[in-house]
């Protein structure tokens, strides 16, 4: 590793000699006993060294790979120069939750995939740098209270996930009076109930929530739209409504045995542990089964989160059972890598047939069949084909089903006029507006299960169109 002194401009050759800096991590052996975050974050020195690798390309392809087009070369250069405050300013201009996205974005498919260094070697660790700056800002930047001219327009946001939080922040900065309604007792959406502490500490999410409240956003938890209030009531009470309720309905496999004790949806398993703190049972009241042999079915981030959670809850053996092969796993590469370090085992090209149980109806195993990969299917991934005669039972006492989620009909079924796709998602036009005037939607409820950054991008973009809409349509301004 070359350590280059600051002060003089580095040549391209010098920059190319610097290796990609490794993210310091908690020791794998120590991890199984704790839900504390695995990645420890770059030190200032590591961050500046990593920033020196950036070649400041004229055509910054990395920016094109970012769904919210963060000005990456500028903030990386500011890190190189040690001007972290300036870097933070650059970053926050395009991304309201960098401490979150720096931890959970699939950078290897986005910015880092487009980095020219990646063609021959390792791309600049843009995600790690983003996280570094966001964390630095949390400790150093104290936002002066904004003086915003109130517009008197009232906007309701349904759901306090990344989409809703981002939209609410933008709308508040435009001077609107924003109220978020959240069904659960804590805001954050999947960031709070789904993604585990060891990947995204809840403190970080709640810090961001606090920033919104400082901007004057009202957050009302324990309100289920479709039950407590209807969408129609919100339309009457507000000038516009942004629907960002996510896609939280768990999908089961429809195989025999899903009613046995010891079978969870990933949502339930993770909610018990993250939102309800079941890892601290009996200090916290919500229990979770602490299986010795846990099998998680699926290959996405959700599955990997569940299996790593199982290890931390004390599972001696925790396995991923995935019907395709490793390259097809949609989970973030870093998480798969961490899971391996933590002793998670992987069964690839295996398709579940049934969950088996004993006389007391506790899970005893997963009956499955091996598959081979056929031709690529409509999603471009190769479809698994069962291999005859390869049936076997993987012994286990807990099965977590992590094969995806769908649109939850709770809100939409109470608003029959709302146009839906045939799969139950909301239909929105290019402005993000549904077929109901003044009702906008974004995030997973429009896209299907996607990513944090895309939900945020929707929130930000649609906040802009909502702003235009309410300024154009609201006739009277009610003084506060």
């Amino acid at each position, binding site marked *: 590793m070359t350590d280059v002194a600051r002060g003089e401009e580095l040549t391209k050759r010098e920059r190319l000699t610097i290796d990609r800096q490794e993210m310091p991590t908690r020791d794998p052996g120590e991890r199984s006993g704790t839900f504390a975050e695995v990645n420890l974050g770059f030190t200032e020195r590591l961050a500046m060294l990593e920033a020196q690798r950036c070649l400041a390309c004229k055509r910054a392809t990395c920016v094109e790979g970012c769904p919210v087009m963060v000005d990456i070369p500028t903030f990386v250069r500011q890190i190189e120069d040690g001007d972290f405050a300036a870097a933070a300013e650059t970053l926050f201009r395009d991304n309201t939750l960098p401490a979150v996205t720096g931890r959970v974005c699939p950078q290897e498919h986005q910015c880092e995939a487009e980095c020219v260094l990646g063609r021959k070697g390792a791309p600049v660790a843009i995600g790690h740098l983003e996280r570094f700056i966001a964390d630095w800002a949390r400790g150093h930047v104290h936002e002066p209270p904004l003086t915003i001219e109130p517009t008197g327009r*009232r906007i309701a946001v349904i759901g306090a996930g990344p989409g809703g939080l981002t939209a609410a922040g933008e709308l508040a900065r435009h001077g609107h009076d924003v*109220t978020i309604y959240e*069904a*659960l*007792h*804590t*805001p954050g959406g999947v960031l709070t*109930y789904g993604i585990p502490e060891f990947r995204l500490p809840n403190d970080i999410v709640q810090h961001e929530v606090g920033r919104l*409240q400082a901007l004057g956003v*009202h*957050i*009302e*938890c*324990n*309100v*289920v739209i479709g*039950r*407590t*209030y209807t969408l129609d*009531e*919100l339309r*009457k*009470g*507000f*000038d516009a409504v942004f629907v960002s309720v996510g896609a*939280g*309905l*768990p999908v*089961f496999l*429809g195989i025999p045995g*899903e*009613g046995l*004790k*010891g079978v*969870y*949806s990933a*949502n*339930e398993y993770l*909610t*018990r542990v993250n939102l*309800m*703190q079941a890892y*601290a*049972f*009996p*200090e*916290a*009241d*919500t*229990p979770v*089964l602490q299986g010795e042999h846990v099998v998680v079915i699926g290959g996405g981030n959700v599955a990997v989160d569940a299996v790593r959670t199982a290890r931390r809850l004390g599972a001696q053996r925790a396995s991923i059972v995935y019907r395709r092969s490793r390259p097809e796993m949609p989970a973030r590469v870093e998480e798969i890598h961490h899971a391996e370090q933590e002793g998670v085992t992987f069964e690839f090209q295996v398709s579940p047939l049934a969950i088996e149980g004993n006389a007391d*109806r506790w899970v005893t195993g997963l009956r499955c069949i091996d598959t081979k990969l056929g031709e690529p299917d409509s999603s471009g991934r190769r479809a698994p084909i069962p291999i005859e005669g390869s049936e076997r039972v993987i012994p286990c006492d807990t099965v977590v089903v992590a094969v995806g989620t769908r649109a*939850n*009909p*709770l809100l939409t079924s109470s608003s029959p006029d709302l146009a839906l796709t045939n799969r139950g998602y909301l239909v929105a036009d290019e402005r993000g507006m549904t077929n109901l005037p003044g009702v906008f939607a974004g995030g997973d409820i429009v896209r299907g299960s996607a990513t944090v950054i895309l939900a945020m991008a929707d929130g930000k973009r649609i906040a802009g169109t909502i702003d235009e809409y309410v300024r154009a*349509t*609201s*006739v*009277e301004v*009610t003084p506060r």
Partner: protein
Amino acid sequence: MTTESEHAAMTEDGDPSVAGTAGYEVISNAKLSADVHRLVIRAPRVAAVRQPGQFVIVRLGPGAERIPLTIADSDAEQGSIVVVIQAVGKSTSDLVRLAAGDRIDDVVGPLGRPSDLITSGTAVCVAGGVGAAVIYPIARRLAEIGTEVITVLGARTSESVLYAEEFASFAELVVCTDDGSAGRAGLVTDALREVLATRSVDVVYAAGPVPMMSAVAAVTKPLGIRTIVSLNPIMVDGTGMCGGCRVTVDGVMRFACVDGPEFEAHDVDFAELADRLGTYRESELTASTHVCRGSA
């Protein structure tokens, strides 16, 4: 576009809990029997719209479980709801210990679908134990809309008969106790059989322990009498997000918190429900004997 009063109805007059910090005040707590209490809780948003058959999920404070409780009654004017709680474990025991003026961090609702109520004819409402609190709002509304209601109320002893006076005020009432200390001795199903033998009944509603609901279904099925049961699986979120409350009805997986809690009894897999309720039996023993956190 927005009127001041509409906005007021939406937020200012809502629950005093912004971001779940201020909590929901316990207005009163009355002991109904050895282990059953009736709590009146200030929750105006819920009180304003709740209907028979619906429930709330309550979380006492940091670290507490989210537990479902049927809304037994409400007063929209006062902005309050009534829940009747049987102390069976840690969370319910913590709740029945609350005094007037104490606060519950989170009350969310109304959850679940409202009851499917018949508007004429005769209904028998069968309740076992704390199921009386589940059946009460259903029976009362049925009577209000002109249905003839016969209530069969079962309990272990005279001391644990709940809501007898209230039921008697609008419905024919048959009380059964295990030991005969009140009403007749025997099971609710015996009393139900007699009612069904002498009266023409259109629908039976039942709520109580799973074996009781299952036994009621077994009585009415051969007679072809439509029967609706209120199921009580373990729940977490109550919004359809976790699937923990799944039950099998007519061979199909349903989520009780959003598709129910009421289902057609003759289609319900009661054995599975009873079994799944035992998932945490061992853990619950740990929770209720664990003392170091103290009561909330």
